């Protein structure tokens, strides 16, 4: 059984990653999901969050994805991301207070309100940026 599969991470402005990987973890509306080799043909929407690529040698690559679509077809995975950023250290306290106020805003909305999806995405963006910032710090410590 294969343990590796091809992945292409593309955005409207270019190809961010094109190569063979062992595992991909990302976030869809139902939560985190992972893709390994020989995955069933699969299509899902992505919500803002962290996309983790595990290379065949075990190293991880992290990307901050603002949303998009992921597809697995005949063993090959394509991630169509709206926008991709690299994790960078940020002011985590400010981000978490922003996330908190976004959460309070969301609490006032019902699932069927017009602004609900945007408000939910906003929280996801703040959380992803906090996580990315933590990762960037950890990587900085290891280096």
């Amino acid at each position, binding site marked *: 059984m294969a343990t590796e599969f091809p992945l292409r991470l593309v955005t409207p402005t*270019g190809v961010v990653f094109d190569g063979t990987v062992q595992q991909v973890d990302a976030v869809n509306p*139902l939560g985190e999901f992972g893709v390994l080799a020989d995955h069933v043909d699969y299509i899902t929407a992505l919500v803002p969050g962290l996309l983790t690529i595990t290379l065949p040698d075990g190293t991880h690559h992290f990307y901050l994805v603002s949303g998009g679509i992921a597809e697995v077809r005949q063993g090959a995975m*394509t991630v169509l991301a709206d*926008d991709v950023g690299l994790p960078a250290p940020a002011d985590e306290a400010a981000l978490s207070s922003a996330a908190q106020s976004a959460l309070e805003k969301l609490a006032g909305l019902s699932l069927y309100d017009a602004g609900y999806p945007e408000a939910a995405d906003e929280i996801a963006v703040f959380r992803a940026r906090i996580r990315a910032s933590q990762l960037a710090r950890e990587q900085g410590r290891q280096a």
Partner: protein
Amino acid sequence: MATLKAIRRRISSVKSTQQITRAMKLVAAARLRRAQEALLAARPYHEALHRVAGSMLSAERAALAPAEDARPAGLILVIASDRGLCGGYNANLIRRAEEEARRLRAEHLEVNLFAVGRKAADHFKRVRVPLAGESINHAPRLATFVLARALASRMLADFRSGAIREGGMVYSQFRSALSQHPAYERLLPVSMPEAEVAGSSQTQYLVEPGRAELVPVLLRRYVEASIFHALLEAEASEHGARMTAMDSATNNASEMIQRLTLEMNRARQATITRELMDIVGGAEALRA
């Protein structure tokens, strides 16, 4: 015949115009290269999205049809440029848009025009055609994903609310620096080219969270990406057209300078001949 001084002044004025057109040609060439690179970089995303959308959306005809009580109207995005001096680029584009508007009217649809670029907005204002909206001043770049997203959400909102039955755009397809082709592309209701559908209809996907949730997400991306692609093509076309126009303007200026130089030399020669004649005539008179 113009005086020597007047001709000299004209030559220097044509020369300075030529300097400007030459500089504009060089700038357009550099921008064209950048626009072509962006067009190339966008291709993998565009192709992959078309493939995914082709396999998913072709099975969702019901979800993609216009609302039953939708107003009989259509929205056309006219993607022109903000600045002129690019030959017939904007005129051709506007002519194509007007053709498309006539087609919609023949189908008894009311036409809403949305002008992207100052040249389109100015034209429709001049001929007193009301605009549904306009988006101008995109210096230095026209093709940004932010703009594509704004245009897409406008069109999708109109389509969903039943304000329009058809949405499309007129833009210039980039063939080469010398050739741009104004074209209309219908975006809504979505119709997938047969080839894309045939190639991918066998794939049975596991869909998360569910088809009902995924289709709107995919549709939005599809419209955004199509508009973004059209903006990229339009940007490359504009710079290509400007480069060609400025190249022929530079050549025309060279020809004009040549012609004027000839005229100037002739005038100078005539002056010299006249002066010689005067001297010879004077000498002859003295001798007589």
